[in-house]
């Protein structure tokens, strides 16, 4: 029997992400065991809920390593929890696949640390690419002050220059805020703005989108991959969400993918399985966990239960087709995704469409 560990933020401020991740892992382990395990060995999943608290995450990581003696760790829903797990994994030399966004997790590369979600820098790049295509040169930005929003804000500021775009208004909001009209009013009143970008996840972006419509700003609005779930459209309201663009993985648009798309089969199967099992709509975050698990599974099949061998096998992952894209890891790249993994989506009539 092989033990794998997970510490996720199934409750707390990031439960929006952690909850589908946890459910996905449970579902997949069940499936694998039902199919006879890996190379005949059953999987045991030891999963803890760190509530989004980095200190707790570290304790649970220690527990997974020292007490449960797992072969590998999946988790770290947020960048904060991930960063506090890293020293534990590195010290104990246990492979660790993070589900958090920040590029810092794998840059610089750490021997035992991998991650599956696109980095926030990639999201920025994808968005700016699209803006560039539309001839946008001046934008306003409104970001959440949580880890996700703040980190993406910083990354976007870092790469925005590469696209000849200038951020002329830079506002923030607290993730639990009820109204963002003051910030949006300021953005609206800033001369020359051609588009607005809103890095953030949870309810903030929905409220931003509603307020955006309330104020009739009338410029293209970009959201981040943090809101890539069907729920966003419902919460923001179909009218308000009309025309909003965001970068996202293929998972969200499984139905409208062309049949030729290599990801189509994978994402459709995962989505159907997840929605059947949990009764809740699928989100990209669950997809990150799916990818992490599948990559780990591939490595276990190849390498057996030895941590060092698993690590090497993960690093050797090539051509893995997941919900996030096609993964090709190397010793220098512990993510293995490129910009093509992202699709630029636009909301039309309450549904996703793919922007060419």
């Amino acid at each position, binding site marked *: 029997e092989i033990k794998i560990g997970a510490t996720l933020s*199934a*409750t*707390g*401020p990031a*439960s*929006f992400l952690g*909850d589908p991740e946890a459910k996905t892992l449970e579902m997949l382990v069940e499936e694998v065991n039902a199919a006879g395990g890996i190379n005949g060995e059953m999987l045991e999943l030891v999963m803890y809920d760190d509530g989004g608290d980095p200190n707790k995450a570290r304790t649970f990581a220690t527990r997974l390593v020292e007490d449960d003696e797992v072969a590998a760790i999946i988790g770290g829903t947020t960048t904060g929890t991930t960063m506090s797990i890293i020293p534990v994994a590195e010290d104990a030399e246990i492979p660790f696949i993070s589900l958090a966004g920040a590029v810092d997790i794998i840059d610089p590369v750490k021997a035992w640390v991998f991650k599956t979600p696109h980095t926030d820098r990639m999201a920025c790049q994808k968005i700016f690419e699209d803006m560039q295509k539309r001839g946008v040169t001046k934008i306003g930005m409104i970001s959440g*002050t949580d880890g996700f929003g703040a980190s993406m804000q910083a990354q976007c500021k870092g790469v925005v220059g590469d696209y000849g775009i200038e951020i002329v208004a830079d*506002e*923030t*909001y*607290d993730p*639990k*805020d*009820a*109204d963002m*009209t*003051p*910030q949006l*009013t*300021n953005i609206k*009143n800033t001369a020359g703005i051609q588009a607005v970008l809103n890095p953030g996840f*949870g*309810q903030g972006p*929905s*409220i931003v989108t*509603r307020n955006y419509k*309330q*104020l*009739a700003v009338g410029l293209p609005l970009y959201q981040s991959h943090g809101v890539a779930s069907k*729920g966003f459209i*419902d*919460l923001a*309201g179909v*009218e*308000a969400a009309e025309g909003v663009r965001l970068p996202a993985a293929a998972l969200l648009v499984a139905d409208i993918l062309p049949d030729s798309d290599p990801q189509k089969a994978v994402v459709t199967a995962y989505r159907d399985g997840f929605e059947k099992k949990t009764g*809740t709509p699928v989100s990209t975050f669950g997809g990150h966990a799916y990818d992490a698990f599948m990559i780990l599974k591939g490595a276990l099949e190849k390498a057996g239960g030895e941590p060092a061998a698993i690590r090497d096998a993960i690093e050797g992952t090539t051509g893995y087709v997941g919900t996030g894209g096609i993964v090709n890891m190397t010793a220098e790249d512990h993510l293995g995704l490129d910009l093509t993994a992202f699709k630029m989506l636009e909301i039309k009539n309450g549904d996703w469409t793919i922007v060419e």
Partner: protein
Amino acid sequence: MSELLQFLFSGVTVGAVYALVALGFTIIYNASDVVNFAQGEFVMLGGMATVFAHAAGLPLPLAALVAIVGTAAVGVALNRLAIEPARGAPVVSLIIITIGASIFIRGAAQLVFDKQIHTFPAFSGDDPIRILGATILPQSLWVIAGAVLVFVALWLFFTRTLLGRAVLATSNNRLAAQLVGINTNFVMTLSFALSAGIGALAGVLVTPITLTSYDVGLTLALKGFAAAMLGGMGNPKGALAGGLLLGLLEAMTAGYLSSQYKDAAAFVVILAVLFLMPQGLFGRKSTDRV
């Protein structure tokens, strides 16, 4: 000009939300000197229960009613099962009980409901009302009206009715209250029912604006608490004024200074006010003599 007006609208909307939560604090505080940190959970329950009752097929008004009554029942249960048995315990112990209760309710909500974010349609549509270049949503007017209404009702209750007086007497001196024939247990039950009901009402009114999920309670409780203290705990006037002021402060800071430090500015003002008026704006001074 329209900018200022927009900030004002935003501030009043958010302020009314805070005021509703702060008003909820008032009653339990007046009956027992306890700041009920589970107040935010009542707001959450109001919103979430409405969402789920609505989804189960009840028309919205009925769903809201069910949610309010149900939450009031939770309030009564909280008093009966947790506050009443701890009678005579020091106030800090009671506060820890309410914190425990809020954790419990939150934990229960994530099981009974779910961990998703929800909303339901605004009562009178989403078309913003335009005034002098600024806009406000009709739902904001509902929230503001709700806050004012609850304020007036509470104010009348505490100043015009014998029962309201009895509530105040119960916290002022529970022993004496019993000696004059006040059923202090009933007063407590009533207070919790009312507080929870008002909290749930707040949840119903604000959900179309703020959205809701199992964990919205904590932030609301915190802001409501700050608002209530700014205005002076225990006084409905203070709750209303404190809530609106806090909302306006946040909006003005976000608009004119820095959105990053808008909460900071709010707290700086609270500190400044308390420095000058240690009982908040409308708080009563304790009149005990030596």
